[in-house]
């Protein structure tokens, strides 16, 4: 059994896992952890799309 993810799917999964861990270890209350995790995920996505569009514009 193998998994063949494309670039976007792999980046999405990595963002999800990293956000969960960062949210878990940084804040004090569960609510703060959830908010921080969601915010991290949103920033990951913003960077993913931002850098993606930047590279597209750069390469034409």
């Amino acid at each position, binding site marked *: 059994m*193998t998994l063949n*993810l494309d*670039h976007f799917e792999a980046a999405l*999964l*990595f963002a999800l*896992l990293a956000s*969960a*861990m960062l949210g*878990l270890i940084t804040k004090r209350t569960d609510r703060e952890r959830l908010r921080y995790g969601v915010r991290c995920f949103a920033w990951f996505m913003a960077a993913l799309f931002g850098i993606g569009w930047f590279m597209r514009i750069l390469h034409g």
Partner: protein
Amino acid sequence: MQAGLGGGVRGQAEGNLKGPCVYAVKIIVMPSSSAVADSTAPTRSPLLLTGLAWLIPGSGHLLLGRRGRGAIVFATVLAAFLIGALMRGPMFHPGGNGDLLSRLIQIGGFVGDLAAGLPYFLSVWLGYAPPDSAGHAADYGSKFLVAAGLLNILGIVDAYEIATHQKD
């Protein structure tokens, strides 16, 4: 008078007694205050906890009574490792004949792989050694394996800080 008296009773008892009796009351009351101090002390050695948290991701939190957080650490590290293994990502090996930068990358990657703990040892034991093939899937897989170890390091540090009362 019993051990475990509250502050008010203790103060009243000390106020009514003089001389050697005060010391007697203090001796009787002392176990109560030391019992309170013991409840906040670490129940396990932080170093032992760190080693266990490395071997089994999330076990450090579990031993500290943070079951939910331990389960999330375990699931996160295991998911990252499984995704990497299913994408047939190759492991890093510290020995190599490349230039300095290549060797540094290999050593850093090896440390990341090793930090995953038991999943790494199990996969090596089961003979997981895919070839370093070209293509984005294997490349991402290799990075997911390292990411699993790095996420576990975050979990280990968190468990250590909880064990040493640096955070809740």
